[in-house]
C-alpha cells in the first residue's frame, strides 16, 4: 500500500515538475494520469516493469480506494462558500441561475453530440 500510494504521488510529482519546468498550460495531475496510464500499458508488454506496486493489483487497489470517495475531496473547497456570502447576497440568484442554465446546456450539447456521432459511425460501418 505505501509503495502504491508513493507511485501515484510520484506520477503527480513528475507531472507537476514537467508542467512547471516547460510552462505547459495543463494541470500537473493530468500529466500524472497520462504517466500512470503509460506505466500500466508498458507493464503488460515488458515483464521486468511488473514489480512492486505494478504487481498483484497494488496500484489498482490504491486508486480504487481514492476514487471510491471522490465526492469527499470537494467538501473543503465547497465550504469556501462561507467567504462569499456577501457576494451571494447581492448576486447569488443571478449566479446560481447562470450556472444552472449553463450546466444543463452543456450536458445536453455533450450527450447529444456523442450520440449523434456514434450513430453516424455505426451507419457507416453497416454500409
Amino acid at each position, binding site marked *: 500500500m505505501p509503495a502504491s500510494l508513493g507511485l501515484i504521488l510520484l506520477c503527480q510529482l513528475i507531472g507537476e515538475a514537467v508542467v512547471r519546468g516547460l510552462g505547459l498550460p495543463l494541470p500537473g495531475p493530468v500529466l500524472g494520469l497520462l504517466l500512470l496510464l503509460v506505466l500500466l500499458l508498458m507493464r503488460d508488454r515488458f515483464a521486468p516493469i511488473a514489480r512492486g506496486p505494478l504487481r498483484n493489483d497494488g496500484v489498482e487497489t490504491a486508486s480504487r480506494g481514492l476514487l471510491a470517495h471522490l465526492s469527499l475531496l470537494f467538501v473543503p473547497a465547497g465550504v469556501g462558500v462561507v467567504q462569499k456570502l456577501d457576494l451571494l447576497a447581492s448576486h447569488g440568484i443571478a449566479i446560481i441561475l447562470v450556472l444552472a442554465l*449553463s450546466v444543463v446546456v452543456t450536458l445536453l450539447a455533450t450527450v447529444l453530440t456523442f450520440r449523434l456521432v456514434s450513430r453516424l459511425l455505426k451507419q457507416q460501418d453497416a454500409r
Partner: protein
Amino acid sequence: MKDNPFSLWVYLSQSPLLWLTVTLLVYATTDAVSLAMRRHPLANPVLHAMWIIGAFLLLTGTSYTTYFAGAQFVHFLLGPATVALAVPLYENRKRVVSSIVPMLVALVAGSVTAVVSVVVLAELAGLPRDVVLSLAPKSVTAGVAMGIAESLHADPSLTAVAVILTGIMGAIIVTPLMNRTGVTDYRARGFAAGLAAHGIGTARAFQVDEIAGVFSGIAMSLNALVTSFLVPLAVTLLVR
C-alpha cells in the same frame, strides 16, 4: 478546573485535528444518508456536508482559513485522485479506444458550450466583470479552474465556489435530465456528466454505472486540458 471552560474549545478550534475530524464525520453522515435514500440526486453528500459545516463555522465564529488548515489534508487528495483515474481508464481501454471519435467530437462541442454559455449568460445577467471572469472556468475540476482564474486575474476563491456549485447542480440534474432525453448509452451519459460537472459529476456517474464513471473521468481530464486553452480565448472574444 480553574481554567476558563472555553480554553479547551479555544485550543481545539485552532487545531487542524478538530476541522479534519468534522469534515470526515459530517461527510460520513451525509454519505450514509445518501446511501439510505438509494442515492437520490437531492441527497447529494457534498451539498449537505457543505452547508452543515458552513453553518457550524458561522455559528462558532471560525474563519475559513482556520477550517482549511485542517481540511487541507482532504483537499490535497484531489491531485492524487486525478492521477488515480488512470486505473479505470486502463481497465476499460478497449471500450475507450473504440469510442474515441464520438468522445473527441463531444469534447469539443461540450467544452465550447460550457465556456461560451456561462460567459454569455453572465453578461446578459449584468454580473460585474470580475465575477464573469471568475465563473468562466466553472466546468473543470477545482485545482485547474483556480489556476485559470489566477492567470485571468479573477478571484480564484469565487471560482472554487462556482466550480463546486456547478458540480453539485450537474450531479443533481444529470440523471433526471438524461432519462428525459431518452439516451440510454452510458458512455455518452457519463461523458456528459464529467465534462459539465467534473469530479462531482464523476462521483455521481460511478454511483449510477461503472462505464458511465469511466467515461466521466475521461471527460473530466480531457476537459481540463481543453478549457485551459479555451477560457483565455473566449474571454478575449466575449467579455466587454
